[in-house]
């Protein structure tokens, strides 16, 4: 008799599984586009028109940064809430509703993006950041809104579970995993107000022709209001896994429950008022506002640095319980053969490196050196591309048996896969960082120019390209192994010999944590006040300068094709053909 998640919560396990599979589908398509870009950019293999590169890039960004991460997140969070509260969701139909909404949102967003490959007049090659006056098809914005609303309802679902639980356990501390889910969700609610405002008030009406124009700096600022905290939204499930799974898999206990709570509270209050650090080089925002954003951002390092200590100490506890000794000798006693452990540990290590390049990005004037260069791409391939993605893939090897009741297809392949990802990303992101320091821009199909060349102090640009291509190839191979394992596991038969659905105990438990840490209203209020401090004056100033709806602009739908002729709203027929594709995709996901 095992005690897996699917046995305890069969209905929830289905939703979690569906969310995971949706996430993996996005990962597969996004990953495929990743290698296409790698080969195109480095010039090793260009089979498409360079204009199409940006369509590929848009799909890669949206599918991986939004779809892959957030679908995985809702799966993990649903698991965390149900497991730690030990109660099923209040209404499984509601759970399916938000999941469905997210799927529909994704599909609606994907339609105009993918239409960019066809001769259709519809397109949304506006990249993940969709800066106006580049204009996507209305469906693109509408889909994004639906997706975000889906995540809002998911959050409501988790809160509902917690409220119901609280009625029955009035004097108990919020279990740590649920606490993490709730603080992250609150942060998400505050953060998404920015993108919701940008889309609903400005971009969507503008793309529908209801308003004449938009203020590009305003929508851009609102985007980054959301665009930075979204980074933490991806990261928090990975952090959760490091806090509650990694210690257990290392053979130990979480070093400190109270500090874990402190960390999540800090993320709740500091994640949002920092977005302007993406706009250090924007004209129209005063230097003082940028300085304030920098201070907030730098203090946001604190919870991550604390996490580093707590998580490593928990691993060390495990190692010492397993007989590890010495100052560093204990590292050998860790279960490196376990792909779940090895993957998460390597992801954590890469995140330490990413932390450093992030510190550079956070610095105000040093931003001149790296802003919008390849460095930034290197940075977020370490954060979302490794710290998050590799952690997700590693815990998948633990989660899949839990939500399918089937044994993992191959642990050796899994170990090889996570190590391969680490090596591939080392090559790729290292070369990206170095390329950025030479001034090579990000987001470009062909970083080769007629009038000048990039000069490398050591080696050459060609060698950097080779490293990137090699890294990309290894990453693709790693992905193939990952999917082989996922499919192999799904095809396995049910097993009775699976580990129980558990997470790590704590050395210093919740009773050590001051009660005030669980006061979510207080932290939310503080978070909102900080956001108002950080954002009201910059936003007012931007509106005062450029107007709410900005100057007169020429809308520029980025049609991928021979010309750049203005293409107005699309015909119904393209919508319906694309709709059929959408239905096919939904059917594929649902099965």
């Amino acid at each position: 008799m095992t005690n897996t998640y699917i046995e305890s919560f069969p209905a929830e396990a289905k939703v979690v599984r569906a969310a995971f599979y949706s996430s993996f589908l996005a990962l597969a398509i996004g990953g495929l586009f990743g290698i296409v870009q790698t080969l195109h950019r480095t010039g090793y293999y260009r089979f498409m028109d360079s204009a199409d590169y940006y369509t590929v890039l848009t799909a890669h960004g949206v599918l991986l940064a939004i779809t892959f991460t957030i679908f995985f997140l809702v799966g993990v969070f649903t698991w965390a809430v149900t497991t730690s509260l030990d109660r099923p969701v209040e209404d499984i139909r509601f759970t399916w509703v938000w999941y469905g909404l997210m799927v529909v949102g994704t599909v609606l967003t994907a339609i105009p993006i993918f239409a960019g490959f066809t001769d259709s007049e519809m397109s949304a090659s506006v990249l993940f950041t969709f800066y106006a006056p580049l204009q996507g098809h209305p469906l693109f914005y509408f889909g994004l809104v639906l997706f975000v609303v889906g995540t809002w309802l998911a959050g409501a679902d988790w809160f509902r579970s917690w409220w119901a639980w609280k009625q029955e356990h009035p004097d108990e501390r919020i279990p740590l995993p649920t606490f993490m889910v709730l603080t992250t969700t609150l942060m998400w609610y505050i953060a998404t107000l920015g993108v919701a405002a940008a889309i609903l008030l400005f971009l969507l009406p503008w793309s529908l022709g209801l308003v004449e124009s938009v203020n590009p700096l305003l929508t851009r600022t609102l985007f980054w209001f959301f665009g930075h905290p979204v980074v933490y939204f991806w990261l928090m499930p990975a952090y959760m896994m490091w806090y509650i799974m990694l210690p257990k898999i290392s053979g130990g206990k979480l070093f400190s429950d109270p500090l874990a709570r402190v960390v999540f509270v800090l993320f709740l209050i500091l994640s949002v008022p920092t977005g302007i650090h993406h706009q250090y080089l924007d004209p129209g925002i005063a230097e003082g506002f940028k300085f304030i954003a920098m201070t907030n951002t730098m203090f946001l390092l604190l919870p991550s640095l604390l996490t580093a200590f707590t998580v490593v100490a928990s691993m060390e506890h495990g190692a010492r319980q397993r007989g590890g000794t010495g100052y560093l000798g204990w590292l050998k006693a860790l279960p490196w053969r376990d792909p779940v452990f090895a993957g998460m540990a390597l992801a954590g290590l890469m995140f330490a490196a990413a932390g450093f390049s992030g510190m550079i990005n956070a610095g105000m004037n040093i931003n001149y050196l790296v802003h919008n260069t390849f460095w930034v791409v290197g940075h977020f391939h370490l954060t979302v591309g490794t710290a998050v993605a590799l952690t997700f893939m590693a815990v998948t090897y633990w989660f899949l048996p839990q939500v399918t009741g089937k044994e993992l297809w191959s642990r050796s392949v899994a170990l090889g896969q996570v190590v391969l990802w680490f090596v591939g990303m080392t090559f790729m992101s290292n070369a990206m960082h170095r390329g950025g320091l030479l001034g090579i821009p990000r987001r470009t199909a062909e970083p080769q120019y007629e009038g000048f060349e990039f000069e490398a102090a050591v080696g050459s640009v060609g060698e950097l390209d080779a490293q990137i291509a090699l890294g990309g190839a290894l990453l693709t191979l790693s992905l193939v192994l990952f999917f082989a394992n996922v499919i192999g596991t799904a095809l396995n038969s049910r097993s009775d010999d699976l580990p129980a659905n558990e997470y790590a105990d704590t050395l210093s438990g919740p009773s050590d944590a001051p009660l005030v840490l669980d006061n979510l209203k207080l932290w939310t209020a503080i978070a909102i006040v900080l956001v108002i401090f950080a954002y009201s004056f910059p936003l007012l100033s931007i509106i005062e300068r450029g107007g709410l709806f900005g100057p007169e602009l020429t809308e520029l739908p980025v049609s991928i094709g021979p010309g750049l002729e203005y293409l107005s709203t699309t015909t119904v027929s393209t919508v319906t053909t694309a709709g059929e594709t959408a239905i096919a995709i939904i059917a594929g996901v649902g099965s």
Partner: protein
Amino acid sequence: MSQTADEKARSETPEHDREIGHDEFDPIGTLTLIGIYFLILVFLWFFMYFVEFLGNDPTVVGGTLVFAATGERLR
């Protein structure tokens, strides 16, 4: 990797050698590891700021903060 006496060959570590409670656990290994990380961070920060960044002339100069501090634009 140095060869110390306590680095012993273990191809298979038993799940639990011992139970270590809260009070008897001193994460000295963590402190060591994170101390190394700290030093790397400090070194790299100075390197990036003073060598890579300030060595990457020209830089945008002569601004409001300086003006506020010194009353004149730096040349």
